[in-house]
């Protein structure tokens, strides 16, 4: 069995990047969220957030809908089933790693 710190390398970096992780985590608790909310949550500028969302959309994790609310353009982002599975698995993996790291002793690494 590999050591917990080695397991870190197996984390999906597409999901684990902090901004994308925050976006996916928030979306996992909502039907959908708009661009302003996600921008506020991540603190990113529009261009950078758009870039992150595009990557998630390309990976099939989110669905982006552009619409008008009255005269104001609104971008709604919704998690897909694949995205939901990915974020759930990712947090399970993180929690498992956290637990493993807590119980890890340096002696165990010696042959």
């Amino acid at each position, binding site marked *: 069995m590999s050591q917990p710190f080695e397991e*870190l390398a197996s*984390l999906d*970096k597409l999901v*684990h*990047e*902090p*901004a994308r*992780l*925050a976006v996916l*985590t*928030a*979306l*996992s*608790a*909502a*039907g*959908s*969220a*708009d*661009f*302003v*909310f*996600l*921008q*506020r*949550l*991540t*603190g*990113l500028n529009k261009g950078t957030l758009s870039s992150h969302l595009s990557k998630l959309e390309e990976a099939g994790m989110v669905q982006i809908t552009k619409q008008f609310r009255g005269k104001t353009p609104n971008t*709604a982002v919704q998690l897909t089933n694949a995205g939901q599975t990915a974020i759930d698995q990712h*947090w399970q993996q*993180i*929690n498992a790693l*956290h637990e493993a790291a807590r119980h890890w002793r340096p002696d165990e690494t010696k042959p």
Partner: protein
Amino acid sequence: MDLDARRAARVRYVTSRFTAFQGLTRVPLALLCLAYGLYVVTTGETPLVALVLVTLALAVAPMAMDRYYKRAFGSVTPTPTRLLWEVVTAVANFAVVGLMIGAMVLVLRALAPVLIVAGVGMGIWQLLVWRRHAVVLPSSVAFAALLPVVGLLLLLFPDRQWVESGAGNWAAVATGVAVLIGGVLDHLVLTRTVRPIERVDVSAL
């Protein structure tokens, strides 16, 4: 701080109850209760016309607050499951709280003390039990549940002596304070949760 499991749980919790955490929308109602109660307590007069005008003015205030939240924090659509759960909770709260308060009022024959206990208790509940998380829906429904109860009591006991007791004004003050504190705390939870996640270098992990 990075997005650790604890922060993530907080983000999920607040996102799923996003509208409920918009506490400032309840502040106008709280101020109305507070101002009305204090005015009547200090002057002994009941400013009915002023009350109607202020109520009308304050009916617009939540809409302004709603626009503020949409501009500053964006908007979140709850999941269908969450929406259904909130409706079920609202109906359950409506029935339970309405019956409880109604029963207490009937037994004690005193509306004001019951309202004071309910108002202050709701504040304490929100502060301690729910750890400052929003209970806007249950508490709103609890207040709404008072209306049919009071209406029924007015029909059953037309003398209304117990409804018009002086303590009722203190009930309005207590209710105002409880709603005000709850609203501000919910707003603080929202602003502290929906704040930028600090950047870390993923390659360092």
